[in-house]
């Protein structure tokens, strides 16, 4: 049974801790603490963009 990868394995996300990233065709095309500031890149991605928050703190429970 196929195992789906959630994030592209070749991308180093350590540079984006505490930020939202926009991934388009397996490449980070934008990053910012404020997601509203990278709406343009989300719109411009020709394929379905991937949005991820790289949190700074440990997310324990909510």
């Amino acid at each position, binding site marked *: *049974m*196929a*195992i*789906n*990868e*959630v*994030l592209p*394995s070749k991308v*180093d*996300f*350590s540079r984006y*801790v*505490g930020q*939202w990233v926009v991934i388009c065709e397996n490449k980070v095309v934008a990053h910012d603490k*404020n*997601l*509203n500031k990278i*709406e343009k890149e*989300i*719109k411009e991605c020709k394929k*379905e*963009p*991937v*949005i*991820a*928050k*790289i*949190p*700074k*703190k*440990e*997310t*324990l*429970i*909510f």
Partner: protein
Amino acid sequence: MSIIFRYAHVPRADGTLRKAPFIPVHVTNKFGRSMEVIALLDSGADYTVVPKDLAELLGLKESKKENDTGGIGGKVKVRNSRLRFRLKGNRENYPLDVPALILQDKNEDVPLLLGRHGFFEHFHITFKQDKEKIVLKKIQPKKVY
């Protein structure tokens, strides 16, 4: 059929890697475009929690009344809403509509958190920590004859 995701390796501030059960959910943003959001599957959360700026991007409607909620991190202000998304596998595509809480503080440092209500009722979910995989199997409704 099951949908299987490998745990995502997400860096911590100290440079070490956190391996956690993130899964992609497909949503439509306020511009009418489909996008994939990486969400943390949080079995300890009653409800799905949406960061404020993500809720704005998705154009989510929120209740007028503000409530307090919280967990180990303490109390936070939230408003009630709903989140519609699709969970997709290689051959599966499941629409879901779950109750959600929108964080009111933009400085809250959390990703999209998928909680139990509205989601865990529909899937048998197995966290295979040793293999760093999550397995989701759709629960088929019982036939009534």
